[in-house]
Every structure is written in C-alpha cells, then in structure tokens.
C-alpha cells in the first residue's frame, strides 16, 4: 500500500484541529464544546502517528505510544466531563456556556 505522504497527513491533522477548535469557539452547547475538544485531541494523535512513520528506530515507537496515552486520558476526560456536564445541567437546566458566569471575579 502506498503510504500517504507526511505533508498531506499533517494538513489533515491541522484541518481536524481547526474544525475542533472552531467547534469549541462557535457552539454554545457544552456537548459540542466537549466534542470539539475530542476532535482536537485526535488531530494531535494523528499528527504524532504521521511523524512516527518517517522516524526510524526507537523514535517510531515513541510516536505510537504517545497517542495511546492520549486516548486513555481522553477517555477519562470524557467520563469526568460528561459527569460534570450532567451535574451542571441538573442545577442550571441549561447547557449554554454563556450562561455560566457565576465565577466571574
């Protein structure tokens, strides 16, 4: 199988990241904000993997191990995030980020 060139993979990763970040910025619903964050994490994972393919020796492994960590942590983060989201929704009856300004200094 012909390998996809590094450059194209990086561009893809950047596009994914931008979409994720855009989602975080644009959507007011906390669900979508969390989804945007997941997308950004996976964009970074893709970038890691793409880089690992052009490396040689031990660096190849490092490039593949880092995404594994990242996925595991992202799973934990999703758990906590969704739990908090539920708690917030119960107390506020809303998922609008702009509505949460009680902690302003």
């Amino acid at each position, binding site marked *: 199988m012909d390998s996809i060139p590094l450059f194209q993979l990086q561009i893809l990763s950047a596009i994914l990241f931008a979409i994720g*970040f855009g989602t*975080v*910025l*644009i959507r*007011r619903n906390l669900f979508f904000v969390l989804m945007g964050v997941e997308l950004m994490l996976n964009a970074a994972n893709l970038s890691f993997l793409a880089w690992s393919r052009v490396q040689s020796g031990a660096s190849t492994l490092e490039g593949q191990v880092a995404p594994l960590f990242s996925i595991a942590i992202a799973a934990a983060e999703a758990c906590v995030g969704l739990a908090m989201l539920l708690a917030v929704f119960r107390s506020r009856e809303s998922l609008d*980020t*702009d509505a*949460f*300004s009680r*902690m*302003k200094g």
Partner: protein
Amino acid sequence: MGMENLLWLIPALPVLGFLINGSLSLASARTHNGPSRGLSGFLAVLFPLIAFLLVLKLHFGLHDAQEVVRAQNQNLGLHLALPQSFTQPLWSWIATGDINLSFGFAFDGLTSVMLLFITGIGTLIHLYSIGYMAHDRGFARFMAYMNLFLANMIVLVLGNGPIVTFLGWEGVGLCSYLLIGFWHHETANNDAARKAFLVNRVGDLGFLMGLFLLWQILGPSTPLTYQAIAEWFRDPAHSAALASGVVAALLTTSTLLLFLGCTGKSAQIPLLTWLPDAMAGPTPVSALIHAATMVTSGVFLLARMSDVFVHAPLTMQVIAWIGAATAAWAAVTGFVQTDIKKVLAYSTISQLGFMFLAVGVGAFDSGLFHVFTHAFFKAVLFLGAGSVIHALGGEQDLRKMGGLAKKLPITFAAMFAGWYAITGLPFGAGFWSKDLLLEKVLLQGGTALYAIALGTAILTAIYMTRMMILTFWSPSRVEHAVEHHVHEAPLTMQVPLWILGIGSLVAGFAWAGMIPGCSWFPAQLASIVGPAQALFVPVEHEGPSAILLAGVGVTASLLGIALSFGLFRRGAFREKSQAPLSGFAKGWTLAFDTIHAVVGIWPVRISSWILEKICQPLLSGLVRLFAYIVSLVGLATQWFQRPRLRVNLSMSALGLVLILIFLIFHARTLL
C-alpha cells in the same frame, strides 16, 4: 597592653557618659524634676575627666617612648627614627576595589596638644555647667549633649585620616545645632540653630569636595590617612607632578574647597554669620563649642594637612587675607555690640581670623599656639560672662550692667585675667601667642598684613576694655529689681573660673620665645608642621628684633586700652539709649547676612518659585496625561475581560498565534 590600644577609650568614655545621661533623661521624661542633678552632673564630669587623665597618660607615654629610642640611639650609635605617634587602626571601613579606607585613631604631638585642652577645658566647662544649668529642667539632656559633643570633638582630632575627622566634623556640627537650640521653646533659638547648621552644611560640602579632589590627585590606592598624605607630599618623587599645570590647578581648587569647609566651621568670611547667632545657646555651650574647641577645628585641619596646603601658594594667600579681613571686620563689629555674649562672639571670630592669618603666612605652629592660649582666655571670658548673666538673672545687655566689680569679685578677677590675656599685656597668654603671631606675619607675610593685624590688636584692646568697663567699672545701670539679687556664682562655677583664669595668665609660657627652655609647644608640633614650615622662607631675613616687636604689640594694647577708657569711662557713647541696634551698627553686623541672602538664599527662593509655579504644573500635567492614557487603555480592554468562555478562549488562541508568528519570523535573531 601597649599605649596605642588605649586610644579608642578617649572618645568612648564621653560616649558612655552621653548614653547614661541620655537614658536618664529619656527615662525621666515624664517626671516633674527629672533625674537627680547630682548624679547626672557627676557622671557628666567624671567621663571627660577620665578621658583627660588618659590623654595625659598617653602624652607622657609618647614622650617616654621617644626618650627610650633616643637613649638607644645614643648608647649604640644608631640613627633610628623617633616614634612620633601612637596609631590604632580599628577596622577596615570601606574596602572595595583599590579603595581601602581604614577607621582608626592616631595620637601624635598635634593631637596631644589639642586633646589636652579639649578634654581639660571640656571637663572644667562640664563642671561649670552643673552650677549654670542647675535650675533647668533639661539638665540631664544638656549634659548628654555636651558629652556627645566632646566625644565627637575627640574623634575629629584623633582620627587617623580626613574621613574619620569628617565624621567628628559632622558630629560636632550636630551637637552644636542641638545645643544652640537647647532652649527650644523660643523660635529665635531654633532659627539660630538651623542657621548654624545650614551655614555649616555649605562648608561641609566644600570639605567633602576638596577631599575627593585631593584623593583624585593622590590616586585611589593611597590610603587616606594623614600619615600617607603627608608622606606623599613630602616625597621628592612627586614634586614634578605637583609642578605640572593640571595637578597644580586641581590642588589649588581642592585646597580652596577644604578651606571653605574651615571657614564654615571656624566662622570666617564668607561663612561667619552663624556664630553671633549661636550665642542663643546656654553660655557653657558658647564657651566650649563656640570659643574654645569646635570653632578652632578649621585651624586644626589646616595644620593637619599643612603639607598639602604649602603646595598651593594661592590658597595660602587667600587664607592669610581672609584671616586678616575677618579679624579686622569682626573687631570693628565687636566695637558696637550691646550684648555681652555677642561682643565675645565677634571677639572669637576676630581671634580665629588671627589664627588663619598665621596659618596663611606659613606659621602653622604659632597659629595653633594662639588656638591653645585662646582656648583658655576665651573660655574664661565666656564663663565669666555666664557668671555675670547668672548673677543678673539672665540679663545680657551691657547697657544694663556696670559697677559689678565689687559685687562679683571672683567673676571679676577671672574675667580680668582673661581680659589681660586677650589684650596682650605683658606675660599674659595672649602676649606670647599674639606677639609671636604678629612677628611671623611681619616676617613671612609682609607689612600690609602686619599693619592690619596690628590695627586689629588695637581694636581688640578697645572693645574688650569697653566690655570690661561697661560690665564692671562704669557706674551701675542695673535695674533696681535685679540689683538686690546679684550674687556670686556657686562653687561649681567658681572653680573653673579660678583654674581657667590662672591658665590664661600662664598658658603662654608653653612657648615663651624670649625665655630659653620655654618651647614645649613648638617641640610638640615639629614633626607635623615642621616640613611644611621649612618651605616658607621669610620675606625679610633681618627683621626687627623680637623684643622691639613685642614692645610695639604692647604699646598697641595700651593705646587701645587708653582710648577705650577715654571713650567709655562713664558708660557713654550709645550706651544710654536702650533701643535695639540700628543704622551703622546693625548694617555692619548684618552685612554678611545680606550677602548670604543675595548669593545663597534668593537664588534658592527664585528657583524654588520657578519649580513650584512652572515646573511642578508641567510635570504633574505630564503625569496626569500618562495616567489618563493608562485608564483609557484600561477602559478599552475591559471588554475582553467579560465572563464569556468563547471570547476568552479566542483571545488566548489569538495570543498564541501572535507569539508563534513572532517566533517564526524572529527565530533566527533570537537564537
């Protein structure tokens, strides 16, 4: 323990007295009477007395050390140098780079002479103060200040270099300020104290700048001790450098600035106005600080640095002429004063002028000899005046005195001795020192200076005799209410009067030029001012004989006394009017105040006006402008600080992007 290890004790003892009396004064601040007069007076006299005994011991110790070496030289045929001083380096004060300033004391012939009369007369005046200040609530505070003054004066004289001297120099200025304004409930006293302090600051600035310039000439690696400075200037290897234009100009500037410091401390033209005002302080203060010791420190400094000053002939000329001018000016002013202490104050300025005149013509030792004898007779005159003021219940106006000779016999006898000495009548202290001084002035300074000095000697006799007549001999003009209470002073005040009165008659024999063997004084100073004086060749080698000059001096005194008796015998000549000074007398007195106002005070006032009315609004406007800009920026950026997650996030993303862009384009320059 070697003698030199005792040096630090001399200033430490009065400091101890200051601490104890100061604590007593503070601790008893809330009580009605203050601490026991007996205790605090005893302590105040005890420590200076021990210091005096210590100085005596060191004086003879130095003499013995020299004798030992001299005997060795004779017996073994050696040529060892005689020890000229005890030195005690205490600690390194400032050590940085080339500069290494040590703090230490040095005790040599000059120091020993100065310290003998500073601690000796100081002790007597402390004793006198017990009686004079007995009824004052601030007794302990007064004694504390006096002890502190003595300690500072000792540091001034005992310091091993000009920097240590400067420490004492500032210290005595502070104590002078504290004691002039001792009776601080009256504004006039506080004004006088501030004036003394400020005028002295001008001189002190000169001292410091002169010192730094001098250090520049010597090079920073020369340790700034009198010993090193003298050796540097005595070294023939440096004579070529001293002759070069730049160094000579620097040296002249430096010595002139140092001399400015001396004029401030010693009340010479142009910085003399503070001393008459300083008479606002209690009389013992006037006697100790403003007559016997502090005001002579200018002459002391010149003698200490004689090796420097002789290499600046222009400065020496300036010193001589300023000394002569001050002597004459102050003598004329003394002539029209109506306050007994003011007469003595101007007399002090005049006598200090004599000393500077002698120093200026290169006769350092005879200038210092006049310092020595003057300390005795001016102290006794001031203390006598204090006794008169005490007897009259605070009256200082000569026009309200008279006929006191019979009522105050002891005071009269003491002041008579002082008067006898200052007018220069035969064999009194002033006779020996003033005639020697006049002789040196004639031989080394020329006839013009001699004429001024001789004229001043006549004036001195006139105004001093006038003071004596108006106080003691003329018909009594004392107010009736006061007259009943006139009483002789208590014993503590009489003893110093006796001792100093006798001193002012016999002190001159320390250097009675005409009597062989009476040359203790110049022998003490030979090693310090000798090399400098050797550079001065008399203008006329074949001057008139010393006897003839002494005859001229005595004739001048007698002439002045006779004139004075003719003028003031009945207390006439302005003394009938009770009005304050006006017209000529006032203008003459205040001439230098006017000059100070024009030269010093008005420029400051004008510039302060400019600063207040023009610069201050401009600057504050500028400050407000910046503050306004900052608050505007704050208002504008407030919008970004809203509690909106998406705004905050986009702002941080924007910031990150900007940083990345900057790094990309400037990575090369940063690395």
